[in-house]
């Protein structure tokens, strides 16, 4: 099976894209720091050794040339974070940056919620709905624990999946991630169990889910189903600048995993996220990746369709409002016959924002009767902003049906005039068009989520930015 995705991306077809020189890596990461992390977490021997092997790989691997936008990474800074973990940057609600506080107020969030989002509360245990949900998951036999805890309580099962889908051997930053990982969540859905409600993990696991190098694994055993929501569409203040997280999905025969991320972190974050899933026979993996915040986001949720008749969809939404870059997309490897995939990318660029779509659709030799459809829609709100699309197709079977469509929309003065003549301000008109542009992905999201997302998008274009 061809899983060397990073190599695939170095394919000559992508040469016209301007890449930076090697990423400058400042400082050093010593063996003792990695040992220390493992010791503090009281990890079993296998995990300690695993981290060290990953560290060796990190040191050995060349710096990638395919990670654009990121100029340098300071390992000393990252290491010092582990040695002396900083407490939350604010100690009470009033110390939050006023714009974040104001947004929370405008979103109409209850105070406990807002405090939680701001990192001032560590758990929402008092909220009945979460307790009820926890009880339900327990009853169904679903394991959902912070990764550290899962390693202690279910070492055998975690060991079976950790690094199985996204090994540290993949590239330098995968190795760095595996050496330093901390936080994240482990989910295991037993055979035949269908979790009836979407699980908003953020509210169970809290800030640990969004660590700097968090590692999340979702395993769907045969015939199971789960919708897992990571992150939160409300803005979140983050303290570290470089984020190198990882998500591994393993969908066993006939199972279905929906993995939803909506990220709205503060605008100083470089968010590099490694997301990959494997789907066995007849399994379905659905990714929803919504990226509103951060300064730079680089993430390409990927699925390896390993089993006959497996399916995947990737829905990627990137909003680049202002001096931000979203380099997103999706990679699909069709490694078995009768597999199908669908990628929908929606990007919105405004006030100088940059959106880039990179996609890979690969149909391996022997993967007959494959279908794949990619749709990239870009909405560009002004001349300062841009959007580019780089789809790559590697098709090794002639009967594969692979299609790609790309469209670009711009808002015209006459459209704005029409809408403002109905009483909406120009910014309100823009936010309405933006919402209309993304609304066809809403049915994929739970209702509470879309209503929050709707408010966030309105605020994003009404208050902070927008044209005019």
């Amino acid at each position: 099976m061809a899983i060397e995705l990073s190599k695939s991306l170095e394919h000559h077809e992508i040469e016209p894209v301007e890449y930076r020189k090697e990423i400058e890596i400042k400082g050093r990461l010593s063996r003792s720091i990695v040992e220390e992390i493992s010791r503090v977490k009281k990890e079993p021997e296998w995990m300690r050794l695993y981290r060290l092997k990953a560290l060796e790989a990190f040191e050995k691997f060349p710096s990638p040339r395919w990670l654009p936008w990121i100029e340098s990474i300071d390992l000393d800074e990252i290491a010092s974070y582990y040695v002396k973990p900083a407490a939350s940057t604010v100690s009470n609600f009033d110390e939050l940056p006023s714009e974040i506080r104001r947004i929370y107020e405008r979103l109409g969030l209850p105070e406990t919620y807002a405090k939680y989002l701001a990192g001032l509360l560590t758990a929402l245990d008092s909220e009945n709905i979460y307790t009820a949900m926890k009880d339900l998951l327990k009853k169904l036999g679903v394991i959902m624990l912070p990764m550290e805890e899962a390693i202690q309580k279910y070492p055998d099962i975690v060991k079976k999946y950790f690094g199985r889908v996204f090994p540290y051997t993949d590239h330098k930053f995968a190795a760095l991630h595996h050496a330093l990982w901390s936080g994240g969540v482990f989910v295991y859905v037993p055979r035949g169990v269908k979790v009836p409600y979407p699980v908003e993990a953020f509210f169970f696991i809290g800030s640990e889910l969004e660590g700097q190098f968090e590692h999340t694994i979702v395993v769907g055993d045969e015939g199971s189903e789960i919708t897992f929501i990571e992150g939160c569409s409300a803005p979140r203040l983050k303290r570290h600048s470089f984020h190198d997280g990882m998500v591994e999905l393993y969908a066993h025969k006939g199972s279905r995993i929906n993995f939803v991320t909506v990220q709205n972190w503060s605008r100083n974050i470089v968010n590099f996220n490694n997301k990959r899933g494997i789907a066995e026979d007849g399994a379905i993996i659905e990714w929803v990746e919504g990226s509103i915040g951060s300064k730079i986001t680089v993430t390409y949720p990927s699925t390896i369709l390993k089993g006959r008749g497996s399916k995947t969809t990737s829905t990627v939404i990137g909003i680049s409002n202002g001096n931000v870059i979203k380099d997103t997309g999706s990679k699909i490897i069709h490694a078995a016959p009768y597999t199908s995939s669908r990628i929908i990318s929606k990007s919105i660029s405004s006030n100088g924002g940059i959106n880039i779509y990179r996609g890979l659709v690969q149909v391996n030799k022997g993967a007959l009767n494959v279908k794949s459809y990619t749709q990239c829609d870009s909405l560009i709100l002004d001349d300062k902003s841009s959007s580019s699309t780089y789809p790559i197709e590697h098709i090794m079977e002639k009967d594969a049906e692979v299609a790609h469509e790309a469209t670009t929309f711009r808002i015209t003065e006459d459209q704005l005039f029409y809408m403002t003549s109905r009483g909406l301000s120009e910014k309100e008109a823009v936010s309405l068009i933006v919402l209309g542009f993304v609304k066809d992905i809403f049915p994929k999201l739970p209702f509470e989520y879309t209503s929050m997302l709707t408010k966030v998008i309105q605020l994003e274009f009404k208050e902070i930015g927008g044209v005019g």
Partner: protein
Amino acid sequence: MLEALNLVVEVNNKIVINDVSIKVETGSITALMGPNGSGKTSLVYAIMGHPSYRILKGSILIDGLDYTFKPTHERALAGLFLVFQNPIELPGVSLESLIRSAVNKRLGKNDLLEHVPGLPDRILGEAKLIGLKEELVTRDLNIGFSGGERKRSEILQARVLKPKYLILDEPDSGLDVDGVRIIADYIKEVAYSNGGVLLVTHNPTLLSYVEPGIIYVMLNGRIVAEGGLEIADKIAREGYNWLR
């Protein structure tokens, strides 16, 4: 009263409106006639505040307040509503969501897409009344709409938003007989309930049906005549040549 006073308007470095003054009184209908290219649409765009139509001189007053340089949406909130001659396509925005946003805006709501109790039924009721297919209410606005459907959707918006001053730019173009009757009745209704109407039209039948209190005639960006229905009759018989 809605007034344009000594208006001079430029678009793309060309003067399109030259020293035009008109008054639209409440409780009556004001008509604007003129051959193609005489500046009628430019005038209503300038009154509504289209950003490409630069006002070089003169002023626009709504109920005595100066809106000459106010943005379009403030004019709308002050009571103006323009029924467009060629309503534009809006991908992703439905008639329903546009009206809901406009209503929420008038209610001072923050979340413009908030549910408005009774509004969906109201919209469907109006759609039925003016003969607009129900499914068009939730479809992307004007995309795949026929000319007549676009006009009906404009009237539907106006009926729900209830503007104080209704400006109609050739509302009868592309409309069937029933459609023209619906618009004519609505125009009379607005005037009857003490609103003001500025009606741009070539259609003598429509004019004789709504009986405007005053008719202005434009030519080359200027008002060249004003008077009663007799002007419309003369234009119907002789065209515009006698005014040149």
